[in-house]
C-alpha cells in the first residue's frame, strides 16, 4: 500500500516538476544571436522610463541605424539597481552592457567586467583630453572597466533675486568658501513661516560636505584606500560647516516634508548635480544661475557621473558588439545628442566645452553653462568612491555627519569615530 502511494506521489511530483523546469528554462533570457545574423546585446540602466527617454532612447536608435547588424535590448530599472545587477550576475544572466557609478568598483573587484584598457589604446582615445579625472572612478588596480558616459559633477545653483536683495555679487568660478559662508549668512533671516529665508540647503549630502573636505586639502579616504578622516584640515572644515549649518542652512526638521525649497524661492543656494537644471528652468518665477563649488585651498568638484561597462560573462561576439556600442555612446556625436536640451551632462570634455553645447538656451533663462565644463575639469575622486567598501563606508560616514549636524555629537567626536569605524569597515573588504 505504501509503495503504491509513494509511486503516485512520485509520478505527480515528477510531472509537476518537469512542467516547471520546461517553463523556466524555455523562456530563458540572455543575449542570443538571432537567425538573421544580427547580434543582440542587453543594456541595463537605472532611473526609470523618464531617464530612458531623456538620456538613452535617441542615441540607441541612432546607433542601431548606423549598425544594422546589432540590436540593443534595453532593461530599464526603476529601483534597487544594485540588487538586480548582483542577482543577474550571480544567476549568470548579466546584461552585456551595464551602467555603473560609485557602485562599479564593488562589482569590478569581483571580476564582473572586462578590462577595456587595450581596446581604448587601440582606438587611439586620449583619456585625459576626453574625460579628465572622471575616469579614475572606473579604474580598478591597473584595469579600466568603464567608459564615462553621463558626466556632470557637483555645481552650485543660486537664486539671483535673493542675491540681488542681499546686495551680493553673483558666485563666479573663483568664489571661495569664505564668500559662500558670507553669502549664506546675508541671505538668512530669522523670520518665521512664509517669510523665513535660508542661505543654503547644505546638509548631510556627501556631495556637499565631501567636496568641502577635499577642497580644503582633506578628504575621506586617499587613493590607496587609507582612511584620512581624522585630520586637522577635516576638523577645521567640519567645524565651520557644522556652525554654518546650524545658522544658515535648512534644518532637518523643516526639510522632513521633502519640499524643494530652492525651487520655492526661499533658499539662496543649493549644491547638487547637473540634473536640476532642466527642472529648475521650468519653475515659474525662479530666476537662477549656476556656478562651481566654493573653493577652499584648491578647486575641486564631486563626481556625479556614470559609465558603461562590458560584462565578463558575454561571449566574444557579444563583447565586440558591446564595445562598438559603448564606444559610440561615449563618442562626440552621441554625446552631443545627450547634452541636447540639457537632459543630462555629457562626460566627454570636448563636447562639454564645445560651442554647440554651451550656447544652448535653457527655457527663458540666460544661463552661463561654461561653469559646467569648469566644474567637470575639477573633478577629484575621493578614495571613498573608488573601492568595494563604498556602500558601507558611505552609510557610516553620512550617518555620523548627520548626527553631528543634528547636534548629537561634536565635530571632534565625529572625526575620531568615523576614522575608527571606517578603518574597521575597509578591513573587511
Amino acid at each position, binding site marked *: 500500500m505504501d509503495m503504491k502511494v509513494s509511486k503516485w506521489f512520485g509520478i505527480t511530483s515528477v510531472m509537476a516538476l518537469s512542467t516547471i523546469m520546461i517553463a523556466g528554462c524555455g523562456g530563458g533570457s540572455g543575449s542570443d544571436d538571432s537567425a538573421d545574423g544580427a547580434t543582440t546585446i542587453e543594456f541595463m540602466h537605472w532611473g526609470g522610463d523618464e531617464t530612458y527617454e531623456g538620456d538613452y532612447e535617441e542615441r540607441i536608435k541612432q546607433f542601431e541605424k548606423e549598425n544594422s547588424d546589432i540590436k540593443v535590448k534595453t532593461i530599464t530599472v526603476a529601483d534597487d539597481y*544594485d540588487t538586480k545587477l548582483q542577482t543577474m550576475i550571480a544567476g549568470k544572466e548579466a546584461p552585456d552592457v551595464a551602467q555603473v557609478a560609485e557602485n562599479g568598483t564593488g562589482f569590478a573587484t569581483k571580476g564582473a567586467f572586462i578590462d577595456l584598457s587595450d581596446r581604448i589604446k587601440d582606438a587611439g582615445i586620449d583619456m585625459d583630453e576626453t574625460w579628465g579625472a572622471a575616469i579614475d572612478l572606473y579604474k580598478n588596480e591597473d584595469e579600466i572597466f568603464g567608459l564615462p558616459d553621463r558626466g556632470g559633477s557637483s555645481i552650485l545653483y543660486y537664486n539671483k533675486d535673493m542675491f540681488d536683495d542681499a546686495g551680493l555679487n553673483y558666485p563666479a568660478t573663483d568664489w571661495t568658501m569664505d564668500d559662500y559662508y558670507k553669502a549664506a549668512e546675508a541671505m538668512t533671516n530669522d523670520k518665521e513661516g512664509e517669510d523665513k529665508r535660508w542661505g543654503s540647503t547644505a546638509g548631510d549630502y556627501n556631495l556637499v560636505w565631501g567636496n568641502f573636505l577635499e577642497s580644503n586639502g582633506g578628504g575621506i579616504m586617499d587613493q590607496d584606500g587609507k582612511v584620512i578622516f581624522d585630520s586637522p584640515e577635516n576638523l577645521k572644515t567640519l567645524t565651520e560647516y557644522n556652525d554654518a549649518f546650524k545658522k544658515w542652512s535648512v534644518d532637518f*526638521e523643516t526639510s522632513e516634508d521633502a519640499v524643494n525649497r530652492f525651487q520655492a524661492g526661499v533658499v539662496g543656494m543649493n549644491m547638487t548635480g547637473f540634473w536640476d537644471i532642466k527642472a529648475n528652468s521650468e519653475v515659474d518665477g525662479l530666476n537662477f544661475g549656476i556656478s562651481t563649488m566654493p573653493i577652499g585651498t584648491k578647486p575641486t568638484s564631486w563626481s556625479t557621473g556614470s559609465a558603461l561597462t562590458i560584462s565578463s560573462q558575454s561571449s566574444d561576439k557579444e563583447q565586440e558588439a558591446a564595445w562598438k556600442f559603448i564606444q559610440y555612446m561615449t563618442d562626440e556625436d552621441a554625446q552631443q545628442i545627450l547634452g541636447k536640451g540639457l537632459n543630462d551632462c555629457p562626460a566627454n570634455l570636448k563636447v562639454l566645452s564645445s560651442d554647440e553645447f554651451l550656447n544652448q538656451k535653457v527655457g527663458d533663462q540666460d544661463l552661463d553653462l561654461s561653469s559646467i565644463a569648469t566644474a567637470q575639469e575639477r573633478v577629484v575622486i575621493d578614495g571613498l568612491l573608488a573601492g568595494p567598501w563604498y556602500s558601507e563606508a558611505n552609510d557610516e560616514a553620512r550617518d555620523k555627519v548627520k548626527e553631528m549636524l*543634528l547636534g548629537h555629537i561634536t565635530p571632534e567626536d565625529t572625526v575620531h569615530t568615523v576614522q575608527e569605524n571606517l578603518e574597521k569597515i575597509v578591513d573587511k573588504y
Partner: protein
Amino acid sequence: MRNKNPEQKNGVIAAKNQSLHQRTKSDRRWFFFFISPWLVGFVILTVGPMIFSLFMSFTDWDMLTKMNFIGLDNYKNLFHDEIFILALKNTFKYTLISVPVNLVISLAMAYLLSFKLKGMRFFRTLYYLPAIVPAVASSILFKNILAKNGLLNKGLSFLGITGPAWLLNKKAVIYGFVFLAVWGVGGTMVLLLSSINSIGDEMYEAADLEGASRFKMFTSITVPQISPVIFFNLITGIIGSLQTFTQVYMITDGGPDNASQMIVPYLYKNAFSYYRMGYASAMAWILFFIVMILSVLVLKSSSAWVFYEEEMK
C-alpha cells in the same frame, strides 16, 4: 447455506475491506495530485533555498565570486558586530512593546464593538480599513505623519504635548514605528470581534443571574472563551514583528544612525549592498532560532492560560 465457512466469511470481509482500501487509495492519489503543485513549489522555492542559505551561512559568499567555506566565522563575527547587536535590541524592544499594546488595544476595541448598537458596522469598517493598506503605502504616508511638523505632533499639540522629531530622535524613533503598528490594529481586532460574537448568550445570562458585574463577566467569560484567538494573534504578532522590514526600509532605512535598524533590514543591506551574502544568511538563521524559541515558549505557556472548550468535554 446460512453459515458461511470461515474462508468465505473472511472473503466477504476481505472484499469489503478491499473496496474501502481502494477508495482510500484513490482518495490518496487525488490528494497528492492536487497538492503536488504547491508541494513542488514549497520544496523548490522554500525548503530548497532554506537549506542553501544554511549552507551559505558557513561560507564567505558574496554572490559574485567563488564560495569559500569558513566554518562558524560568520556566527562568531556577528557577536562582535555592534550594529547587529543594536539591531537585535531594537527589534526586541519594538516587539516587546508593539505586540502587547496591539493586543490590548484590539481586545478593548473588539469588546466595545461587540455591543449591538446602531452604527457599529460603520466603526468596524473604519477601524479595519488601515489594515488593508499595503505596507509600502502606509510607510510612505507615515513618513509625513511622523515628521516633526507632521500630523501626529499636530494632534499631540491639541493635548498640550510637544512631540519630538520622531524620525530624527534616536530615543523616539522606535516609538514612531510602534505607532505605525498600532494604526494597523484593525486586523487583530476583527478576528477578536468575530470570536467574541460567537460566544453563546447562555453563559452571560447565567452569570447575570448570579449577579456578576460586567467586568467580572469580561474577565471570567469573554477572555477565556476567546483565549485561543488571543493566543493565535500573540504568536503571529511576535513572528511578524521580529521580521519587520518594509516599514524600516521605507521610512528611515535604519536611521538615525542605526537607532531604528532591525534584523531583517540589516541583513538585507549586508546581502545586497555590502556583498556579504554568507554573513547575511547567518543572521537569517539566528533570527529563525530566536523566532522558534519564542514561539515554543509561548506555546508551552499556553496550557496555563488558553482555554479550549473541547478539552473540557
